[in-house]
């Protein structure tokens, strides 16, 4: 059952120190900035954050990093023109980085959500990012074994929710939201608007309500 929260602070009230937090967005598109601001107020620390990037500018994920709340980033593309917060922490040795190819990042979360114990991916074979991992030749092609990646909490940005918790997204802001929604114990979605149940087209629902624990309009 999905809870419609009164505000973003209620939605993230129980995030525990040390949690693995999946945070949606590709750059700022789809990033749940208001939920992250609430998480900053809430105070959870020693977090492992999984997100495609490692923050842009000084808001959203970058603001969480700047507060020193994140012990480790798991992402594909930390270095950007406006990633100065992460860059500074990383160069100062104040944050761990696990770099994962973007498709492997998505697929590892998909595996966690889909009950898959591991999968053989061709991506990264023969590179530093496959170092130490099991490899196997299958039908003449080389693969590396990748593990599922689960979150305790997912914070995602969607466009609209109905009161049951079904979600639709908007354009390329969809990105990591749907797969993160399948991969975390508690899934919190920030949306622009909550509509009545029955107002979303059942053919166009992207994240069914079964994956969504809390929704907040923000």
């Amino acid at each position, binding site marked *: 059952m999905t809870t419609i929260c009164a505000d973003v602070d209620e939605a993230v009230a129980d995030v525990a120190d040390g949690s693995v937090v999946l945070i949606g967005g*590709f750059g*700022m*598109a789809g990033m749940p900035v208001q939920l992250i601001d609430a998480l900053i107020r809430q105070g959870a620390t020693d977090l492992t954050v999984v997100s495609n990037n490692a923050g842009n500018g000084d808001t959203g994920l970058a603001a969480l990093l700047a507060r020193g709340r994140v012990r480790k980033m798991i992402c594909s593309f930390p270095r950007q023109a406006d990633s100065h917060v992460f860059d500074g922490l990383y*160069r100062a040795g104040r944050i761990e980085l696990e770099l994962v190819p*973007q498709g492997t990042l998505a697929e590892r979360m998909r595996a966690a959500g889909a009950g898959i114990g591991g999968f053989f991916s061709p991506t*990264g*074979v023969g*590179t530093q990012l496959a170092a130490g991992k099991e490899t196997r030749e299958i039908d003449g092609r080389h693969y590396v074994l990748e593990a599922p990646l689960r979150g305790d909490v997912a914070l995602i940005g969607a466009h609209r929710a109905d009161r049951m918790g079904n979600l639709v997204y908007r354009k390329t802001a969809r990105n*990591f939201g749907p797969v993160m929604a399948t991969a975390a114990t508690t899934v919190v979605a920030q949306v622009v608007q909550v509509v009545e149940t029955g107002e979303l087209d059942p053919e166009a629902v992207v994240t069914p309500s079964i994956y969504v624990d809390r929704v907040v309009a923000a």
Partner: protein
Amino acid sequence: MTLSKAEMAALVARDIPAGSFVNLGIGQPTMVADHLDAGHGVVLHTENGMLNMGPAPAADEVDPDLTNAGKQPVTELAGAAYFDSAASFAMMRGGHLDVCVLGAFQVSAGGDLANWHTGAPDAIPAVGGAMDLATGAKSVFVMMTLFAKDGSPKLVPTCTYPLTGVGCVDRVYTEVAVFDLTPEGVVVRETFGTTTPEQLADALDLPLRLR
């Protein structure tokens, strides 16, 4: 005389077969889009979850929910489709893209690609979707200058930078020549201006074949 970046982009655009599904990497490869003929039916994919991406919008039509892999604003063409990151990379890794165009630090004669990490101790590594594209696209085209700023060749016998993918590059576009990387070796496909295959053979530490 060497080719400008725009001329290189036009060259790549010319070589993309009609109706192809294409991913253009961030940076210089993005310029290829400006040279694709609309009637050619090429469909652009962006890794953040879209097919049939259009050009940059007018300043007053920027939509923060509609960006390309470089986080730049783009537009939507008729026939577009949106999907999530897992689906987007399944498409890439599954071999459904016909062509991707990537930049590079180095490419080896055997088609190894290095474009994600200089390996410098203070560098912050970032890979994004480069490994998925290099591994998944049916044809991998590289656009790069043939020589680094220090004058060393970037088309090399063996990459010294950390690899993005092994044996994945099919063709390399540079400002002086285009090379096909084939099982029989590096083939000079065409040269520009006053550059001759002999000059290339002198400058590169590689056996070259003429087309």
